[in-house]
């Protein structure tokens, strides 16, 4: 019995003491690479990163940082991404077209964190958009037979959790616009999600008789006229109530 106890004790000591430290400290941390930065047609930037090695422990978080300084730090424009295999992606928006932006990937594990290489991009601007229709300026129509109504002063957009939203009212409608990931020149796609992802928009309204949300999949055309001014156009975007489908049209300018 004494020998068994001693053997067990010795085994416990041995098994706990055998994890040799890594020669290179860098090997404890993930190795990550910023693979690409791509300007999308709507003016957003798609950044792709890759985990080359997870280090001495599983990867916990991955993401990017972005700034106009040459070596962005983790908290500069931080975007946390989902790891898909060994790759991860984030979408950035809201750029000054006259500045150069620097993007750097990062990854963490239980030991700490490490950065990838820096990639830069300048002249970040969307391809100009041309709406296929031209409703009367500063009006909205929900398509139920009520004539197009004129907006009266429109709220300035406010950002909350990466969604820019504002209310634009007419005498007949209370319309809420929500844009994911920032506001810039480009074509947004409608969604019914309350928190639209970058590149998506949610447009909902209350008109007294109708509550509606534009169905998913329509286009919202946004032209950035200045750093604080945007022109928004929607053409024949369907929405339904009961078994009826109506079409929403608008064109107006919003200022911050």
């Amino acid at each position: 019995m004494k020998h068994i106890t001693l053997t067990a004790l010795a085994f416990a000591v041995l098994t706990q003491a055998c994890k040799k430290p890594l020669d290179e400290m860098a090997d404890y941390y993930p190795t990550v690479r910023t693979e690409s930065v791509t300007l999308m047609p709507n003016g957003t930037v798609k950044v792709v990163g890759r985990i080359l090695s997870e280090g001495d422990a599983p990867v916990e978080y991955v993401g990017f940082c972005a700034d106009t300084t040459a070596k962005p730090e983790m908290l500069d424009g931080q975007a946390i991404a989902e790891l898909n295999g060994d790759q991860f992606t984030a979408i950035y928006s809201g750029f000054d077209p006259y500045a150069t932006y620097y993007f750097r990937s990062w990854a963490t594990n239980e030991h700490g964190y490490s950065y990838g290489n820096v990639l830069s991009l300048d002249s970040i601007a969307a391809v100009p958009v041309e709406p296929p229709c031209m409703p009367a300026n500063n009006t909205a129509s929900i398509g139920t037979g009520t004539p197009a109504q004129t907006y009266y002063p429109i709220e300035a957009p406010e950002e909350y959790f990466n969604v820019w939203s504002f209310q634009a009212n007419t005498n007949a409608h209370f319309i809420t616009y929500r844009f994911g990931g920032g506001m810039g020149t480009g074509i947004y796609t409608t969604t019914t999600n309350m928190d639209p992802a970058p590149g998506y928009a949610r447009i909902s309204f209350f008109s007294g008789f109708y509550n509606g949300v534009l169905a998913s999949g329509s286009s919202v055309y946004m032209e950035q006229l200045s750093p604080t001014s945007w022109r928004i156009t929607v053409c024949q975007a369907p929405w339904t109530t009961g078994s009826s489908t109506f079409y929403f049209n608008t064109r107006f300018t919003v200022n911050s």
Partner: protein
Amino acid sequence: MVMSEHERTAPGWATGILPLKGVLLTALVTLSVSPAAAQIGIKLMQFRPTGDLGYVVERKWTPEFLYIQDFEEKTRMRASFLYMNLQPRLDTFPTTGLISDSNGFRVLPGWQTFSKINMYLITGGLDYAVVELFDYDLALYPGLDIIFGGIGMEYESYTPEISSSGFSGGFMIGGLRLRLGAEWAFNDHFGANLEWSTATYYQEEGGRYTFNDLGIGVRYQF
């Protein structure tokens, strides 16, 4: 307003040399020079931290002072004292923290620096000569020690928006050390040995840490 937060740092053990050191050193010296058991030794060993400890501190050559008997019987007693001023492997260790507030969920980059990491160990145990060759001059033996000691350290850590703190203090440690060795007795007084040991210890208010050591030593019997 911070809704939730979490900070993580490198292994958090701490500092200070405890008064126990003096007491045990005195006991070791007393044992070594007493007429009944006047046998001393010194071993030059390389402290080789493993696991979490190996992430934080460098290997270190250090002397270990021994009270050690010869193998008149199959079993011999031994005790030792060693003190080390350990060096961190990095000037600044990267750490991370998590926060969820009105700005959303974010990963925060932090750091930790160590300005002092001292460790002293007092061991006591047995060796058992499983093989004795060349007219009992060569002995091959395993051994087991009980370890007591203290670890002292000073560090600073910082995680933006969560914490900025420093620590200076000490903790007791206790554990076990398992040993394999070979000893050659040159005569009735002198012997030399080569030993490899592996140890695990628990730290007060901390976790379990491990190290190995490899050393060559001599002993003298009065």
